[in-house]
């Protein structure tokens, strides 16, 4: 097992502030190395320092050794000749990094011809070989928009390696993907290491870290808190943070006890059809939601699950069927939580001002804000800040608070935790579910995370499965 890349005491500073504490890593051929951490933990900065792509304004120190040569992270320009030749980078959301107008095979052969220096005919042959190896033999002439997301990812992967890079750096390769696609990616990356290449993955995705196996490094606040073989770290975590992280994974949550839901229906739909852009996505759906009832809707992106929730709230026109609300409930008691909490608040005023506006609009009891802040474990000081100055998890709880002031009978949560880190996600979901149970609010959660839904919902509707779609 040969050493491909080693980093010794690499640290990152912004001026006098230390963002990444000195860290050492070793990447071996055939053994994946995964850096696991949350947003803002410094995991990306550490990787950037190691390959010399730090944004300007940040300085790095330490020593990096690649293929027997020593590099100084303090001088990023010296790394340039490694890029493409020794180190290939699989960027986040690779379908955005491909040239939208160029066929896939041409993009891969450019790497062979311009970086490796092969003559064009050989480069084209090599590209065709690469694509065939990845199961894209028939797709070489297609443009990225004619490829599926998974195929585009494989094409980008082939392009990243075309320069002859033995080391692949994958930056959040599963960001925004559902479970099926995640497995494709880990299989693709593992095939690379099995062939003797090096793989350094940066991720917040526990399932990916588990699937890649190899070595695992856990980063918190710019410091490596735990390291070791992935299987061992994940099975028997030593550091408190790693333990919390693993416990926060929906797969590890306890199963819910089956409950009987009672009470009059708050919202029902029969024969509901939903269309977007003239295309019918869902048809013949029946939903019956009672107080405290939690229904989950899962499905791949683009299947119409968010549009379904909007249709139930009357935000988009129905393509067919009827939606009936409980009689005697004010319209404002049917509410929605958004995927991106900062965009759901007026950005120019403080959160306190937004809540005061709401209290004034509906002549509510101002005193309830304090009680709800306690209930949702939010600090009253957050009310002085604007939405952009508050973390995503806090802001989503603040959005929940804002909605709860109106005593909702129905809440549609549209991917409420998909932008949040694991631990925050667990916290927000728990609070949301508890509040729904306590206050008798009907809750509809839309998510691509099936694990999460099965652990918190009374009933899960899978939209990719036509048999279930019609179930009552």
């Amino acid at each position, binding site marked *: 097992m040969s050493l491909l890349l080693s980093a010794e005491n690499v640290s990152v500073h*912004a001026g006098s502030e230390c963002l990444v504490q000195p860290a050492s890593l070793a990447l071996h051929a055939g053994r994946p190395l995964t850096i696991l951490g949350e*947003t*803002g933990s*410094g995991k*990306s*900065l550490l*990787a*950037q320092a190691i*390959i010399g*792509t730090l*944004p300007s*304004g*940040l300085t790095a120190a330490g020593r990096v050794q690649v293929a027997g040569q020593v590099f100084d992270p303090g001088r990023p320009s010296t790394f340039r000749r490694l890029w493409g030749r020794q180190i290939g*980078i699989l*960027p*986040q959301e690779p379908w955005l*990094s491909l040239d939208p107008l160029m066929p896939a095979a041409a993009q891969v052969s450019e790497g062979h011809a311009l970086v490796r220096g092969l003559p064009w005919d050989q480069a084209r042959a090599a590209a065709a070989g690469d694509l065939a190896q990845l199961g894209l033999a028939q797709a070489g002439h297609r443009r990225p928009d004619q490829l599926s997301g998974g195929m585009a990812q494989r094409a980008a992967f082939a392009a990243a390696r075309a320069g002859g890079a033995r080391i692949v*750096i994958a*930056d*959040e390769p599963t960001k925004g993907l559902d479970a099926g696609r995640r497995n494709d990616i880990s299989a693709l990356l593992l095939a690379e290491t099995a062939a003797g290449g090096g793989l350094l993955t*940066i991720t917040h995705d526990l399932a990916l870290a588990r699937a890649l196996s190899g070595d695992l490094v856990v980063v918190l606040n710019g410091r490596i808190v735990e390291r070791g073989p992935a299987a061992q770290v994940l099975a028997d975590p030593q550091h408190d943070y790693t333990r919390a992280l693993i416990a926060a994974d929906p797969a590890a949550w306890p199963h819910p006890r089956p409950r009987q839901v009672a009470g009059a229906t708050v919202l029902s739909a029969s024969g509901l059809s939903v269309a977007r852009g003239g295309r019918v996505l869902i048809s013949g759906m029946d939903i019956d939601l009672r107080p405290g009832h939690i229904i989950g809707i899962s499905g791949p992106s683009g299947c119409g699950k968010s549009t379904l929730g909007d249709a139930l*709230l009357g*935000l988009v026109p129905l393509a067919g069927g009827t939606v009936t609300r409980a009689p005697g409930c004010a*319209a*404002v008691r*049917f*509410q*929605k939580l*958004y*995927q*991106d909490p900062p*965009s*759901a*608040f*007026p*950005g*120019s*005023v403080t959160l306190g001002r*937004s809540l005061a*506006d*709401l209290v004034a*609009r*509906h002549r509510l009891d101002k005193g309830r804000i304090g009680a709800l802040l306690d209930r949702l474990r939010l600090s009253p000081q957050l009310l002085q800040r604007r939405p952009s100055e508050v973390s995503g998890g806090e802001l989503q709880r603040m*959005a929940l608070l*804002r*909605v709860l002031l*109106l005593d909702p009978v129905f809440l549609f949560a549209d991917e409420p935790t998909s932008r949040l880190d694991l631990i925050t996600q667990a916290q927000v979901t728990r609070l949301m579910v508890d509040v729904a149970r306590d206050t008798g609010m009907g809750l509809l959660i839309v998510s691509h995370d099936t694990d999460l839904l099965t652990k918190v919902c009374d009933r899960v509707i899978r939209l990719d499965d036509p048999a279930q779609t019609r179930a009552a």
Partner: protein
Amino acid sequence: MTMSDTTLMPVARHGFGRLRWIGLVLLTLVVGFALLAPVLTFTDPLQQDLMKALAGPDAAAPFGYDHLGRSLMARLAAALRLSLSIAAASVLTAGIVGVGLGVLSAWRGGWIDRTLCLLADSVLALPGLLMVLIVTAIVADRPLAFWIGLTLVLWIEYFRLTRATVARQLAAPGVQASRLLGFGPGYVFRRHLWPDLAPVLLTVAAFGAGTAIMTIAALGFVSVGMRPPAPELGLMMVELLPYYREAPLALFQPVIAIFLTILALNLLAQGGRR
């Protein structure tokens, strides 16, 4: 290629830049002169004294006299008051009309949007000077005609800008959330749309005022604007032009006044540029 999910991007600087401050100070000086000059010397801008034709400065007329022996300072101040007030009035009305129609267009969409866009495009196809001229042919009172004509020219920019800016905001979840929470269109405008709109409107207003002042002067210069003996910058230039050998400084005064005013407005229009 980005490798980062960190938030270390440099934050754009808000508020007034240095150039904007210079523009504001210059404009204050020009407006201050226009308003205070009549207080300092009580000269009627129309009062003639042919004995003093093209004479140099004295206590009663610190900037000298024109070819009919009228105080240049008094005339300059009166001309600036006229131009600035017409510019301010038309920018204000054009802003109200343009922003109002822009919000309506983006919000309601459909045939309202199509009709308004067609109207805006049609008006834009007509040269602005011609539009103002047409109105002066219909409305007898010149300042009133300028006001109406310039409003008709200037509202389009507000309309287009507002429509584009507001459409983006209206599609964002924030507006939908506020509507679901029971807030009306007034609240949505005040909290969601206006904060985004206000900084760009200042720029459009400053450019619009510059256009208005230039238009009034241009029409005066070709003798289809204000009528003599009214003091007006373009008219003053064309009246003093035959005497540029005898009194070059007299001709320079309206030129410098218009130059400083437009410069001040253009500097003020500089957005968050560094």
